[in-house]
C-alpha cells in the first residue's frame, strides 16, 4: 500500500494558499524580466517538513492571516501541483480551525525537491501582496 495517496476529491481547480513574507528574500525574488516581486522556491520549500497549504474555498484572507499580520498570500491551483508530479493529501489535524492540505512530493518522504518547489513558485500568483514594516504596530493589534 502506498504511503501517500492523492486525494481525488480535491478538484484540479481548487485554489491553494501559502503564506509568504513579501519583503523577505527567503520567499520573494525580483522577476528578471519585469522587475516585479515574485515568489521564489523558498516560498514552498521545507528541509524537513511536508509543505502545507490552505484551501481558499474553505477560509478567508482574514482567517488565514489572523495570526500573521505581516504575511502576504500566494496561490496555486491543485492542477499546477499535480502537473509538477506531486500529490495532494488532506491534513486530518485541524490547525487553527482550518483544514489544510499537504503537498506531497513523489519521493518517499514526501518532501518537495528544489525542482518541484521551483515549478510551484514559477506558477504561483499573488493573492494578497503587502509590505508591513517590522516595527509597525500590527493593524489588528488591540
Amino acid at each position: 500500500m502506498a504511503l501517500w495517496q492523492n486525494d481525488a476529491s480535491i478538484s484540479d481547480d481548487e485554489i491553494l494558499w501559502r503564506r509568504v513574507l513579501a519583503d523577505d528574500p527567503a520567499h520573494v525574488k525580483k522577476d528578471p524580466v519585469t522587475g516585479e516581486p515574485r515568489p521564489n522556491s523558498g516560498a514552498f520549500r521545507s528541509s524537513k517538513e511536508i509543505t502545507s497549504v490552505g484551501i481558499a474555498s474553505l477560509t478567508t484572507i482574514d482567517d488565514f492571516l489572523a495570526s500573521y499580520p505581516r504575511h502576504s498570500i500566494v496561490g496555486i491551483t491543485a492542477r499546477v501541483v499535480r502537473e509538477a508530479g506531486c500529490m495532494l493529501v488532506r491534513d486530518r489535524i485541524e490547525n487553527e480551525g482550518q483544514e489544510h492540505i499537504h503537498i506531497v512530493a513523489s519521493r518517499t518522504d514526501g518532501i518537495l525537491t528544489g525542482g518541484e518547489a521551483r515549478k510551484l513558485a514559477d506558477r504561483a500568483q499573488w493573492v494578497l501582496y503587502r509590505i508591513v514594516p517590522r516595527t509597525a504596530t500590527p493593524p489588528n493589534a488591540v
Partner: protein
Amino acid sequence: MTGLSNTATMSFRYVEPPAGAGRDAAQGQWSEVIDWPWGARQIPLVQRLLTLENLPKDWDSYGSQPPSKAAIAMGFTLLKGLDDGGLENLTMPRINPVSGGGILLEWESGQRELELEVLSDGDVRYLKIEGGEPVQEDTVTHPMFSQMRGLLLWLMP
C-alpha cells in the same frame, strides 16, 4: 554562536631582517599576525549566516525552527571553499533560510542557476537550472567541499 573558525586567530611570526640591512635592522623582530579566514567579499555573507541562526521560532509562519547549527556550519564550509583556486571569479551567492531548519545558497550565471539547499542535518540537496528549467537535482550526504566544487564549476563559462 556557532563554534566555528569564523573568528580571528592571533599568532606571532618571526620576521627575518632584509638582506643587506644595516646594523640597526639586523636583529629582526617578532610580528603579531592576525589570521582572518574570510575575504572581504565573504564578510557580508558571514554576517548573514550568523543572523539566520538567530531567527525566531515560527519565522516562516509554519512552525519552523531557525536554521540548525549543522546547516550554518556547512554554510561556513561552502563560503570558505569559495576562496579555492578556480572559483575566485564566481559571484557570491544569495543566502536565505529554508523552512525546516535549512539554508539555501543560490547562484546565477547567465542562463544557469545553482541552488544548494543545506538541510538541517548538514546534507546538501542541489538543483541545477538552465534557461529557467530544472535540469538536475540530487542529495549529497556528508558532503565534502570537493563535491560542491564540481557543482560550482558548472556555473562558470
